[in-house]
């Protein structure tokens, strides 16, 4: 009866009040056959990690809009390390300058999708890389 499903936490991080992008990604991951826990807005690194622990998430997906990605991402990576979440995939999406992609990967993000990325590529990436 092995019915394993990929469980993904999708969250906005930071203070700006738009979560349309995150919602769209959440529902498209659902269409991709995943179980998506949608956290909404106003999350902190700590609250995202606690949710990921409670839900035993395989993937954490973060959505940024207004330039806080270089502030929050390292904090989340650090929290993940502290909590033994080495086998949890960390994926970041949103709008930011192209040169920040490499910066975030250096920080420990597994993959970065800039605004306008095709959704199938996100679904495929997660399916192929989930640990």
């Amino acid at each position: 009866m092995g019915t394993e499903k990929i469980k993904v936490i999708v969250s906005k991080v930071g203070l700006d009040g738009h979560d349309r992008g995150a919602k769209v990604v959440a529902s498209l991951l659902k269409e991709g056959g995943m179980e998506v826990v949608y956290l909404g807005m106003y999350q902190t690194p700590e609250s995202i990690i606690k949710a990921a622990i409670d839900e035993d998430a395989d993937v954490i997906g973060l959505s940024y809009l207004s330039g806080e990605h270089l502030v929050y991402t390292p904090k989340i990576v650090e929290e993940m390390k502290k909590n033994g979440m080495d086998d949890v995939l960390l994926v970041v999406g949103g709008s930011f300058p192209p040169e920040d992609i490499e910066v975030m990967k250096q920080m420990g993000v597994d993959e970065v999708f800039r605004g306008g990325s095709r959704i199938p590529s996100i679904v495929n990436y997660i399916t192929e890389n989930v640990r």
Partner: protein
Amino acid sequence: MNLLAMPRKLADNPKALADGLLLGDRRAAARAITLVEDGSQKGTELMKLLYPHVGRSMVIGVTGAGGSGKSSLINHIIRVFRSQGRRVGVVAVDPTSPFSGGALLGDRLRFQTHSMDEGVYIRSMASRGYLGGLARATTDVVRIIEAMGNDLVIVETLGAGQDEIDIIHVAQTCVLVLTPGMGDDIQAMKAGIMEIADLIALNKADLDGAETCLRSLEATVRYGFEEKEAAWIPRVIPTVAAGARTDDVRGIEEVAEAILAHQSYLRESRTIHEIQAKRVEQELGLVFRDEVQKAVFKGLKGTGKKRQYIRAILEGRTDPYSVVEEVLRTFLRV
């Protein structure tokens, strides 16, 4: 073994997970729940270890149509129970899409008030095709959350409609959430009230028509319960679980109080023993069905028999009932 430093899946050892979660470790509990949800053998081993330690928590079901405000209400109820120093676990079930097999689990969004509280464990669950308002593994998940040492476990059903009565097998106290302006559904509603409600929250009491609806519900309860001299008569409590301002919220303390009153009634009247026995009977039935099915399919595997049976049924030479009888005779020697 230090679970803290272990990557999630390396710690998938039923004994280690059981030991951890019995001490209240949420990481161990979270991993244990996944094993059980996936129907894995390790999950089965784990449940065997946990069973002696369950059955002490209050289990509260919250049911009602989607959008009636179940999650919002639970969010506030948690607050009241936390202020009394009780540890709370929540299981919130949402539907799995029959097309993609995926699910959008949005209840957690409404529980944000508790997102940093270590005394609250919240788990979202997809129904994975199981009918009846819950997921197949919900009973075991509730058991795991009990074993963590939570004083209360609150179960939110997915609110698909009228046939959500599975909750009465899992929960000791059932809160039915209704809203004003459900006029057309009044008959179905009455059936639901009679079958499952231990108390009724008339939520969105800030909306038009709340007063009329309240009177009509009270009349239904009076007619259905009081005149039959039922031992427990559900209270109807108007609530506001979300509003423009926080002081709009009301009725929450009353709901929490009524839940505890019902729990006291169950214990004083010893009805709790009946409920617990019913729950075990239900669990036994489910486990039995699953295990027999697994055993039979395992026995059939590689024999090519399954295909033969299907062909025989298609050709009208036999029927599913006769096939199952034959299979059971062969594999279980009954």
